[in-house]
């Protein structure tokens, strides 16, 4: 657990970057700090590993004031990933990843073996190990950055807009990989971004900051979407909050109807399309075990007849959700959400999109 207790940072020129910030980043969870540029995210993050010292207030790592720890020692126990990856241009990838183990005095062989493990963990080919950073793509460099931060197995990971500089497709896969990694490693992660969608996708808890380093709201993503604390947060969240919130509702509860006669399937039971006079019509599928209600709705909208096809993990059609059935669920959901907020545990990290087919 990382605790900010009434932390203020005033730079020598008088800029107050962070103003009386109090928050807790729970152990083993991803806490996202999100807010417009210049709102004090980087400053807050760097106060944790003492690259910047707070002007007043305390930051506790578990129960220990970070000010009581010698900065280099503190930093070797905290992974740090930044936007440009910050790799050392003169060191091979394997040695970049082994940086902290070397600093901790591991012998070279052990440090390199560990680095190779990490390259595999972040999905990089072992033959990249002997290349230099400039020989890698931006996405690969970013993975190396993550591997390097994890090399000495620190309990805490700080990430400052790590995926902002890569293109959207690579960014999405890096985000998915981070979630997959996290489900295995359970690090305490503080993740900084200015991208609210990224915050909602990655965060177990999201702290929205406004300029001046004021905490505007801190909540689970679904709560943030349904109950923004004020106009600033509402505006920052942007449009479609209702639809986006469906991402956090599992589709598991929807009532599946039998496969209708006009659904054409192949020999294995995989859907091919809806029968019509002019040939097969397009359809959409979702996986009721894994996907969100948003994916189910999306799949329904992709079929001309408004019915979403439920498919199992192998893509076989197992049932159909008619628009009426979907309406029922949505109405029930709307009523229920008036009574209680979905718990963070209810969230689905799954795909938001129904799969569109021909």
């Amino acid at each position: 657990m990382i605790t900010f207790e009434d932390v203020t940072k005033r730079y020598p020129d008088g800029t107050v970057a962070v103003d009386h910030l109090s928050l807790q980043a729970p152990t083993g969870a991803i806490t996202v700090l999100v807010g417009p540029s210049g709102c004090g995210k980087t400053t807050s993050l760097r106060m944790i590993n003492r690259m910047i010292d707070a002007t007043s207030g305390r930051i506790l790592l578990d129960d220990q004031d970070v000010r009581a720890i010698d900065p280099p020692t503190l930093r070797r126990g905290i992974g740090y990933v930044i936007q440009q990856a910050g790799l050392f241009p003169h060191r091979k990838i394997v040695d970049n990843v082994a940086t902290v183990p070397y600093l901790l005095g591991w012998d070279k062989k052990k440090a390199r073996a560990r680095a190779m493990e990490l390259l595999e963990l972040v999905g990089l080919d072992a033959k990249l190990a002997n290349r230099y950073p400039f020989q890698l793509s931006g996405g690969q460099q970013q993975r190396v950055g993550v591997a390097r931060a994890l090399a000495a197995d620190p309990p805490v990971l700080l990430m400052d807009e790590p995926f902002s500089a890569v293109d959207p497709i690579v960014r999405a896969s890096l985000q998915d990989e981070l979630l997959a990694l996290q489900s295995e490693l359970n690090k305490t992660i503080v993740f900084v971004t200015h991208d609210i969608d990224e915050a909602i996708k990655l965060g177990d808890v999201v702290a929205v900051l406004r300029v001046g380093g004021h905490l505007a709201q801190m909540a689970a993503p679904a709560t943030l979407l349904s109950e923004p604390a004020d106009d600033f947060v509402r505006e920052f969240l942007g449009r479609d909050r209702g639809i986006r919130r469906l991402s956090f509702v599992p589709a598991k509860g929807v009532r599946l109807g039998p496969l209708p006669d006009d659904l054409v399937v192949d020999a294995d039971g995989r859907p091919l399309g809806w029968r019509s006079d002019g040939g097969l019509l397009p359809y959409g599928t979702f996986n009721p075990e894994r996907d969100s209600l948003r994916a189910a709705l999306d799949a329904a909208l992709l079929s001309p007849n408004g019915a979403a096809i439920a498919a199992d993990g192998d893509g076989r059609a197992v049932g159909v959700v008619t628009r009426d059935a979907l309406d029922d669920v949505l109405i029930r959901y709307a009523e229920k959400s008036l009574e209680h907020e979905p718990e963070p545990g209810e969230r689905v990290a799954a795909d938001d999109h129904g799969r569109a087919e021909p």
Partner: protein
Amino acid sequence: MNDEPLIRWDWIARNWDNGGPSAIKTLLESHVAMALLPVVFGLLVALPLGVACARWRWLYQPTAGLMNVIYSLPSLVLFSIFLSVTGLTQTTVIIPLTFFTLAVLIPAVVDGLGAVPDHVRQSAVAMGFRPLRRLLQVELPVAVPVVLGGLRVATVSSISLVSVGALIGQGGLGNLFIDGWQRQFYTPIVVGIVLIAALAVLSDGLLVFAQWLLTPWSRARRGTA
């Protein structure tokens, strides 16, 4: 000397290694020593001074200013200043050349350190490097290409400047110019020019090779990127 050929090979053969102080081989050796020692001394002094100037920026302006004043003085003036202290010796040539080298190398070290990308330095800090280790293992290695660039300029200038020492009898191959000029005899002059040029090209080539060996990461940048 109208009928004199531009080069008299027999003169070269006789004087290459005639055992005396004016043998071409001896002059070549002293030329190399007088040109390279200032570069070595200069590098040894410029590294700590450059690091200090990069660390405490207020030091840089006065240091660079002083170096530029020295750089702008005609070498002859510098030689005569030291002449009164060190006499007609090689030292009188080596000391001013060391100052010239410093004038090139201190900015090279400062610029090299300045060219270390901020995110690289920041991430070194964040990984937990202490300042000295960060300097030695991250900042200086990343600065090497720029420093070597300065070293190439310093080395080539030093090789050509040594000749001026001929005016006090300590010019290495430069002595050949005086000799040829006084006797209106071209051969020593041509030999001097050719050997000095060859020395410059050779040293520069060696430094380029050293860079190729030392910084595979910047070599590959030009190669495959």
